[in-house]
């Protein structure tokens, strides 16, 4: 596990303005494919998210989300198959169960829970995926850069 402390570099765009950094975890079977379809459909959405592919949202440990926030992600997106559609039967349900606890945990740690977003987007829901990225990006933009308020 990395020990790097909060990032000091903040992304700035060409106009020198701060741009939110979004870490996005997507499952391979629904949301990653949905993001693919957003591309093939040429749906345009903010550039802020970096997608990390995992087989299943069930793979996503709360630790990953906390680590991302700790390392300076302004927002974290987790996107998977709709409940009932999981390629692995029920991994997304496990992710959903963990999510509630994780939200409480980050809130107690002083991070606004609006910085994290759990969404279901199927392989055909390119627009849903793109809208999710946009929503979170705009939400985070309003909240401003992440700070470790508890330090």
């Amino acid at each position, binding site marked *: 596990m*990395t020990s790097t402390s909060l990032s000091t570099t903040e992304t700035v765009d060409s106009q020198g303005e701060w741009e939110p950094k979004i870490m996005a975890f997507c499952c391979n079977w629904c949301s990653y494919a949905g993001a*693919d379809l957003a591309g093939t459909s040429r749906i345009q959405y903010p550039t802020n998210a970096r997608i990390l592919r*995992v087989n299943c949202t069930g*793979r996503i440990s709360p630790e990953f989300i906390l*680590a991302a926030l700790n390392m300076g992600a302004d927002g974290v997106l987790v996107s998977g198959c709709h409940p009932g559609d999981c390629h*692995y*039967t029920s*991994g997304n349900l*496990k992710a959903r169960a963990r999510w509630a606890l994780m939200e409480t945990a980050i809130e107690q740690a002083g991070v606004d829970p609006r910085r994290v977003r759990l969404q279901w987007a199927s392989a055909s829901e390119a627009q849903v995926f793109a809208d999710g990225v946009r929503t979170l990006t705009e939400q985070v933009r309003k909240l401003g850069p992440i700070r470790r308020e508890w330090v």
Partner: protein
Amino acid sequence: MSGTEDEPRIGVFVCHCGHNIAGTVDVEAVAHMASNLPGVAFAADEMFMCSDAGQTLIKEKIKEHNLNRVVVASCSPRMHEPTFRRVVEEAGLNRYLFDQVNLREHVSWCHMREPELATEKAIDLVRMSVARASKLQNLPIKKVNVLPTTLVVGGGIAGLRASLDIADRGFDVLLVEKTPKLGGNVAKWTHLFPSDETGADIIKPLIRDVKKNKRIKILTESKVSEFDGYIGNFGVTVKNLKTEKEERYEVGAVIVTTGFEPFKPVGYYSYGESPDILTLAELQELPRSEQLLKISNGKPVKKVVFIGCVGSRQPGVKGHEHCSRHCCSATAKAAADLRDRVDEVLVLYQDIRTYGKGHEEFHRMARQKHVIYSKFPQNEYPDVIVKKSKITIKWRDVLADEDLEFEPDMVVLASAMIPPEDVEETSHLFSLTRSGDGFFNPEHIKLAPLTTHTAGVMIAGAAQAAKNASESVIDASGAAAKAVGLMAQGEVEIESTVSHVIPELCSSCHTCLTACAYNAISMDETKDPPIAVVTEAKCHGCGTCAAACPSSAIVMYHSTDDQILTMVEAFLCPSPSIQGGG
């Protein structure tokens, strides 16, 4: 992993994809940045990586620069990951030492109007991938042999068909049937539709062929009592129900054709109160005779009533919500046949579901023979009253909007198909899940109706859902094809991207057992305290257990915590040296 002999030497190949990527993303800048990342021994951009030229380039550079990791930044890995894995494999690298970055679907195509930010995103993604690549590990390409024998559970029409097909294809079959006789439900029927033959006519030649076939070992009055192992190598214990003797067999694949049971509709329409009220299945089993005789007194039957959907299509009644599929057509056929021998035949129904080939014709034929069809309301079931030896039936006819009454000599209840009573036992034995109808779930209800979530175990016929005999036969041949597919290959590759328990870290909490949807994790009770072990052949690689393990004792190969977190770090906290250009 750096500092070991396996010092990463990563090759990064950035694809233009014509203008698709290069039109938005500054691919040269991306390649240039990559060339400065730690561990990168070579980086270049190329017009089409997937083309023959691109593939050749990768192979050449692997040799030339002694590369031991490859990153291709191009399109979605969902499209070309298998292509590039094959390429690196052909160049002598393990396929798991490849990583792909999606610059097309996830960058250039969805950020077409923001080339600078898109390039920035592309740079981040490539940096993340390179970081991951340096952590990638060789994973063994695991193959297991498939034993050339298939276990067929159930000797009904589906089981017989599957056994014969497999044997005709040149593989061995172990056919296990719990009753003393082969043939199942079909063997008992006199009014099989849509043919004019009896069930016995159909099933006899099948049984004969099965018995004659040297490749098929038949165990009647037997049940599978234990089942273990994994795809290609299952262990099966079969118990003879008469002698109680158990014998052990090894098979490569399994086809479950445990079929159905006709529902005994106790509590419906006075069933049981008169011998002249019987189910369609019981009618089918009556000996064939010139004249239909009342069971109560042996007098000829003049008037018959059929009632449909008995124990089927009942919302909210567990195990009876489904349509039993075969009954409408079976009723039409039986009613049309009987009409030649009795004066009046009446069919009470909700919907007429004569959907199959030739079925609509039965319905039409029945009507032409003046079988009377009367629709009763969905929630107002007909009343069957037995007084002394007289049966009276009262119902509301929807279409005439009238209350009607009839005194039949015989009432035939088209009762539901339900799973056999030992279905739960079977489901546990083979780790099969069941749906609301009580029958087994296929792997995918649309595209994989014959396979299950237990790799190597197939289902066919009424084991999967209510089905007629013809449909069961199709399923059976299909399931046989799945089994033969495994056996013909002789070996099956099992995904190496499976999870693994580090015994020293396991705290015996059992959390992973509840997390796994495939029963792939069990506790090794021989250890004290018992520790979790993954049966790799059963693992589907979702990684849910790894995330769930509170002791970080589970490694999900090819998706390790380390591999994931290093990407997060590469995105968010690039050290000055790895920011590139530095």
